[in-house]
C-alpha cells in the first residue's frame, strides 16, 4: 500500500473525456434517407474535455459551474450510469447517488412497498432495508401515510420519502445532484444535519449544487468546471467566489 499522501483516494477520475453524439436522424428511415443523401447523420459535442480529479476518502467536495458545464455528466460517470469515452473512472467502496431521488418510485405502490423497491434499486440488501425501515420512515415524517399509494402523496411528501430512502443507503461515497432543496425549512435543516453526520462518519461526499449557502456549510473543497474543463480546484470559498461573480 503506497502512502504518498495522507488521504486515501476514494474516487479517481483520470483523463476523462465524454462526447455526446447529437443525432439528426431519429429513426431507421431517417438514417437511411440521410445516408442516401449523404447528409451528416450526427454532430459531436464534447461535454468533458479530459478531467483529472482525485477525491480522498472523507472529503466533502462541491462541484460548481454554470448550467451545461458538465457537472452532472461527471457525476453520472462516477455513479456508472454513463461510461467515459476516454480515460478512466475508479471508485472505492459502495457508491450511492442522490441523483433525482424518486426515479424508482412506482405511483401505484404504497409508500411502504416503494421504500423497499427503491432501497433495493439503490443496491441495498433485504436485511439491510428491514433493519433500517423504521429509521427511513421516521426520517421522512410521513408515518401515517406510509400505507397509502404514493400517487396520492403531495409532492413534498413524495420528495421527503424518496430522499429519506436514498440517504439511508449503506454507502462509502455519496453523490448528491441538486436535490438539497427538498421540502420545507425544517426538513432541509434535518437533511443538512444528516449530511454533516455522514461527513463525520468519514463518508465521502460529492455535491453538485447551485445553493451556495448549503455548499459553503457542507463542503471544504470546491471544484469549478467550465465547458468541460476544471478551472479551479481548492478551497471552497475561492470556488464560490469564482462562480458567484
Amino acid at each position, binding site marked *: *500500500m*503506497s502512502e*504518498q*499522501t495522507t488521504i486515501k*483516494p476514494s474516487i*479517481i477520475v*483520470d483523463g476523462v473525456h465524454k462526447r*455526446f453524439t447529437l443525432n439528426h436522424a431519429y*429513426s*431507421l*428511415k431517417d*438514417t437511411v434517407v440521410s445516408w442516401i443523401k449523404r447528409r451528416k447523420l450526427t454532430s459531436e459535442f464534447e461535454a468533458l474535455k479530459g478531467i*483529472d*480529479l*482525485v477525491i480522498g476518502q472523507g472529503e466533502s467536495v462541491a462541484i460548481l459551474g454554470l448550467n451545461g458545464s458538465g457537472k452532472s455528466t461527471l457525476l*453520472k*460517470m*462516477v*455513479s*456508472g*450510469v*454513463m*461510461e467515459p469515452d476516454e480515460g*478512466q*473512472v*475508479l*471508485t*472505492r467502496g459502495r*457508491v450511492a*447517488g442522490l*441523483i*433525482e431521488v424518486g*426515479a*424508482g418510485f*412506482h405511483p*401505484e*405502490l404504497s409508500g411502504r*412497498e416503494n421504500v*423497499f*423497491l427503491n432501497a*433495493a*434499486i*439503490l*443496491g441495498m*440488501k*433485504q436485511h439491510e432495508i428491514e433493519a433500517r425501515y423504521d429509521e427511513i420512515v421516521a426520517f421522512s415524517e410521513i408515518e401515517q401515510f406510509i400505507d397509502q399509494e404514493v400517487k396520492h402523496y403531495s409532492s413534498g411528501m413524495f420528495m421527503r420519502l424518496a430522499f429519506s430512502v436514498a440517504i439511508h443507503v449503506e454507502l462509502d461515497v455519496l453523490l448528491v445532484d441538486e436535490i438539497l432543496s427538498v421540502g420545507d425549512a425544517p426538513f432541509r435543516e434535518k437533511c443538512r444535519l444528516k449530511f454533516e453526520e455522514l461527513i463525520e462518519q468519514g463518508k465521502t461526499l460529492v455535491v453538485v449544487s447551485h445553493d451556495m449557502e448549503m455548499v459553503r456549510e457542507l463542503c471544504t473543497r470546491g471544484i469549478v468546471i467550465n465547458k468541460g474543463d*476544471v*478551472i*479551479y*480546484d*481548492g478551497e471552497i470559498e475561492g470556488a464560490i467566489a469564482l462562480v458567484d461573480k
Partner: protein
Amino acid sequence: MCGPVTETRDLFAAVPRSEFDTPGRSRGLIDVVRWRYLLRLLVRTGVTTRYRNSVLGWTWSYVRPAAQFLVFWVVLGLFMNLDRGIPNYAVYLFSGIVVINLFSEAFKNATTSIVGNAALVRKVFLPRQLFAVSAVIVAFVHFLPQVGLLLVVCLFLGWITHISLLSVLAIFAGMIIVMVFALGLGLFFGAINVRFRDAENIVELMLLLATWASPVLYGWYQVQDAIVGTLGWPQWIVDLYLLNPITQGVELFHFAFWRPVTDAAFAIPPGLAWNTLWTFLIAVATLLFGQFVFRRLEGRFAQDL
C-alpha cells in the same frame, strides 16, 4: 491550475488499481443473480400493478385467451373445417395458443422493458438486464392461469389416467425453451429499441408471424404434406421448420396436453426428443447473442434514451 495536476498524476501511478471498481461495469446476466432481491420486487411490482384499478382484475388473464380461443375455434374449426384430421381440435388449439401467448408476452415485454424504465436507466446504475428478465418472469406468471385453464379442461377429459412422467417433463422443457428464446430475442431487440424505436414494430410483426409459423392452428403433418408432397421440396426444409424453438414448444405442449386425451392422434413429429435438445441449444445461443449485443450497447443507454 498547476499544482494539483502534477499531484494527481503522481497519485494515478501510485494507487493500486485492484482496490477500485470501475463504475458501470456489469457482469451481464450473472449480476441478475446477485440482485435477485430487486428482481423479486420488480416481478412483484409488475404482477400486482398490472390489474390495479380494474374491476375484473386477474379475470382478464382468463378472458383474453378465452376470447382468442373462441374466435379461432369457431372461425377455423367450425366455419372453415380446418379441424378435419385433427381430433379434439379445441384442446389442440388451446395448448398451442398458450405457448404462443407466453412467447408473445415475454418477448414484447422484454423488448419494451428498457425504454419503459427510462427514468431509472438514465439516473441510477443497476444491471439493466434485470428489467428484461423480470419482464419475462411477469409474462410467465400471467401464463400460469392459462395453463391452469388448459389443465382443468384436460383433467375433465381424463388426462390424469394417461399422464406420464414424459408429459410433465415436456411441459417444463417447452416452457423453458420458449422463455429462454424470448429472453434472448427480448434482450437483443430491447437494446436496439433504445436507439431505434422501430424495433418495437418489428417485434409486433414477428409476433404476428409467430402464430402462423408454428403448428398452432394446423397440424405439423400438413406442413410436411405441402412441402414434400405438393411442392416436392426436400425433407430438410421440414426439419428446419421443426427446429423453430416456438414450434418445438408448441409440439411439446401438444405432446403433454393434447396427445394423452386424444385417441386418434396423428404421429408425433420426427425427432421430437432430439429436437428438444437442439432447440434448447438454439434458444441458449440466442440468449448468449442477445446478451452480447445488449452488453455492447448498454453503455450508451443512459445517453440515448
